[in-house]
């Protein structure tokens, strides 16, 4: 009985949009890995399909657990979150200067993706009773502390990308929970201001800043990639060339010279959007953008329709997470965001990311399915 109702109450528009994004993603991934699949001797597409199947299972499992029952376990979720992050710091394997991976048997998982979902659940439970009571900076301090502890652990890895996702989720949920938009924007603006000042101070007066050289350079080349066109500026320049050269219609599937000649860095994960933009042009990018908008828009509708504030906040958390990923990932390839490696949801290759996204999609759907209390 329950299955029938669940099926009946699914948001098919949302599902359809995600499905199309997944299919588009597979086509792009196939093209993006022409060289990598030879180099690593494996099919990224088949693996990704396998992950999608696993993700669907996770999605379905999540559907059948009424989210509202999770509200009691807010503290447990929070503690689990911290434990996972600590585990990364202790057992994590270092790749590219960050301890982001935990080896489990022959597989490696990236807890950073899962902890995003945990944060959303925990923070929704933490914020629900505070709705309408977040008017002053003082009111926000507990929230900052709540998010700050896991955030510090993430930055310790260091994983700036996930850290920023945390911050984005927090601000998104705070906004919806009724914190003053002006206050929030001042905080964001102030934060950016401090970063700019700190970097300026670093160069002008040799200030110490808590950034590694490569992170600092990413911010510098965001302003002018020609400062270092062959190293840190390379990604900025080459990804824009890929996107721009796609033109209206694109160069055709598998025909992107920037892609197949390896001018793009890791084009099957962080820079996969460049491949799409280069090979499918403005039409392709606009369609993907539209599909993401549908997902986001439906997410906001779900937040509105939720039977309780807890559900609304979960939905907003999920939406904030996705929109930040989209903004950051696409933004860095078109020069409106600095380079920070986070995947494009449902498109970038990678099991952890896909699982996490399917999980939060499950949460979102869950909120939708149970929004009408009369059903059950």
């Amino acid at each position: 009985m329950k299955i029938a109702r669940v099926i009946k109450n699914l948001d098919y528009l949302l599902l359809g949009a995600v499905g199309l994004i997944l299919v588009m993603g597979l086509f792009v991934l196939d093209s993006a890995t022409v060289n990598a699949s030879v180099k690593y001797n494996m099919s990224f597409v088949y693996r990704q399909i396998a992950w999608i199947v696993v993700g669907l299972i996770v999605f379905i499992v999540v559907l059948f657990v009424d989210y509202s029952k999770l509200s009691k376990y807010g503290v447990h979720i929070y503690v689990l979150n911290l434990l996972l992050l600590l585990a990364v710091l202790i057992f994590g394997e270092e790749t590219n200067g960050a301890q982001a991976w935990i080896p489990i048997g022959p597989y490696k998982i990236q807890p950073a993706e899962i902890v995003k979902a945990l944060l959303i659940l925990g923070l929704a439970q933490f914020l629900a009773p505070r709705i309408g009571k977040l008017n002053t900076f003082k009111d926000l301090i507990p929230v900052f502390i709540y998010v700050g502890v896991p955030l510090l652990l993430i930055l310790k890895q260091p994983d700036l990308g996930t850290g920023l996702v945390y911050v984005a989720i927090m601000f998104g949920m705070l906004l919806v929970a009724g914190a003053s938009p002006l206050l929030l924007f001042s905080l964001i603006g102030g934060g950016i201001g401090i970063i700019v000042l700190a970097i300026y101070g670093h160069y002008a007066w040799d200030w110490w800043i808590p950034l590694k050289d490569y992170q600092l350079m990413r911010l510098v080349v965001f302003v002018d990639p020609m400062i270092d066109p062959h190293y840190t500026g390379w990604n900025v320049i080459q990804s824009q060339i890929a996107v721009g050269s796609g033109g209206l219609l694109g160069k055709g599937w598998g025909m992107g010279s920037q892609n197949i000649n390896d001018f793009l860095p890791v084009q099957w994960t962080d820079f996969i959007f460049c491949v799409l933009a280069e090979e499918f042009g403005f039409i392709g990018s606009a369609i993907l953008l539209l599909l993401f908008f549908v997902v986001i828009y439906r997410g906001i509708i779900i937040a509105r329709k939720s039977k309780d504030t807890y559900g609304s906040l979960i939905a907003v958390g999920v939406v904030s997470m996705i929109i930040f990923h989209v903004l950051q990932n696409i933004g860095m390839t078109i020069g409106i965001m600095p380079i920070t490696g986070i995947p494009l949801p449902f498109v970038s290759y990678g099991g952890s990311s896909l699982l996490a996204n399917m999980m939060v999609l499950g949460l979102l759907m869950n909120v939708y399915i149970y929004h009408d209390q009369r059903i059950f």
Partner: protein
Amino acid sequence: MEDNKPKIILKSTLRIYLGIVIAIFIVIFLRLAWLQLIEADIYQTKAESNTMRWIPEVASRGEIVDNKGQVLVTNRPVFTVSLNYLGLKDQDIDEVIKKLVIILNDSEITYNSIEKIITAQRSRLFEPIVIKRDVSMEIVTAIEERRRVLPGVSVDVYPQRSYNYGALAGHLLGYVHSIKEELEKPGFEDYGMTDLVGKTGIEKNYEQYLRGKNGFRQMEVTSKNQPVREIRAIPSVQGDKLVITIDLKLQQVMEQSFDEAMVEVQKKHPKAMAGAAVLLDVNTGKVLAMVSRPTLNPDDFNGKHLTQEKVDYYFRNIPPALYNRAVQGSYVPGSIFKPITGMAALESGEMILEDNVLCNGKYWNPPYIKCWSVHGNVNYYSAMAKSCNVYFQEMARRAGIVEIGRVGQDFGLGEITGIDIPYESVGTLPDLEWQKNKFEDRAKGINEKIDKKIVALEEEYSKKIAVVTTDEEKKQLELQLKNEKKVWEQERKNQLAHYTTWHDWDTYNTGIGQGYNEYTIIQLANYVATLANGGERYKPYIVEKIIDANGNIIEEYKPELIKLVNIAPENLKKTRDAMLAVTAPGGTAYSIFRNFPEKIKVGAKTGTAQPGRVGYIKNKDYDGLFIAFAPGDDPQIAFAGVMEHGFSGGGSVGRVAKAVFEEYFKIQ
């Protein structure tokens, strides 16, 4: 429901939230539209230049083979390191150059030397800047491993000249080197900065044939510059093959014997370090062998950076090795000119063969030029055999300078032979025309000098006259000026009489190959060849065939008769006989060809010249010259050679003539 208030809050905050989301999407959308719709052209060009490379394929130069087809000069592929300045544009160029210097590990290549190369190429920085050619595989590997830190550095394979016999015939073949001033000249429009071009020898003269046609490949490459696929290719075409008249074996013998002769002469005359020799086929004008010393090894150039030592050796030292002394050097011939004097006397009818001339050690006409010995009564044959100066001064007097000039002209002396290698010298035949020009020049010089003196005098006196007061003093000074002017006018007369007139002694000096005479070795060899073949003067040449890359003969050079000398055949015969007497018992070259069989008689003439050049001490330092032809009854080959500071002709280059004649006639 008390829960209603938060829900109302959420409804309004979600509206703000949606607004922000829409704003974010609009920003992304607009930025995408800007990049992909408005600036698409710019980025498409950038993407294309990212991946398209025009890779020139430098054509191999044509081979050079000897008259039997043995390959003297060919090509081999070498790795060349160059800088692509455009690739370096945004880089720390200094850093890249410093790293490259360390990797190349060549004492000649420093930061400064590379900067110099870049500066030299300032106007054409879009072309690759060649830093070093022919680098080892280890260095190529080292550069490839450091690709990332060496942006703009590229390693390409170019064909480079390869000389199968090292320095053999180096002057004649010539060398190739980086193009420079040629770029400004017509005919070099399609050359690039990195091209090598023939600078001397036949490499220069036949540049248009040897060069070939460069091809190119348009390649799509990856970010690491690895080629992905070829878009299109126009293959290069190797330059034409030159078949030259040089005989490898004869050339080797000539070079080796020249070096041995120098070593021998140096024992007594250490300044003997330079010289030249030529062997001609008398019936065609083909150059069978040609040597110049000091040696030039074309591989020392070949697009490489010359060390200071090499620069000194080729350009600065005395004698500099660069010049092909066989065609670029003019030498006072000394006694090897005597056959010309003899023929002039015969032609003028003033010599009667049986007539004896008495040599008592010096000529009886002023300035009484000495003979090197006392020969007693000599006739044409014995005088030639013994190289008597008195006899040939007398013959010169009898023939007169006009006739000597005519004969010399007929034999091509003092005239470009037209041989197909560059920078040929003219030499000096002091005939009437030359005298006229020379004396006019001298007269001009003398007149200018004396005119200046007179003007100065007049100025001096006009100043003096201006300050004196009385008329008497003035008159006195005017008189003085007049007298002084007279003195200068007399001086003018004297100088003109002395320096702008042909004196009898000039004719005597000319007759024995001294005085104003100066000829190139190729002219001398050709004069001997002309004498030997009965009076047909051919243009000497080196390249006989040009064969293109498909094996088609595109040029074939035939013997070219320049002049049939206007000299009675019997006079030529008498003169040849006189030269045969030189190698007969009692002749100055007897000992050299003693071992030659009866049927291969050699006609020869030794020469010892006082060049009067810098570095020669009068009556102590002499150039040794030697001419010869053989066989006496049907001459095939002619030789001429010089060894600077060789002291005597027979003792120096005579040995070279002997060695090449032995090789040619297979005499043990």
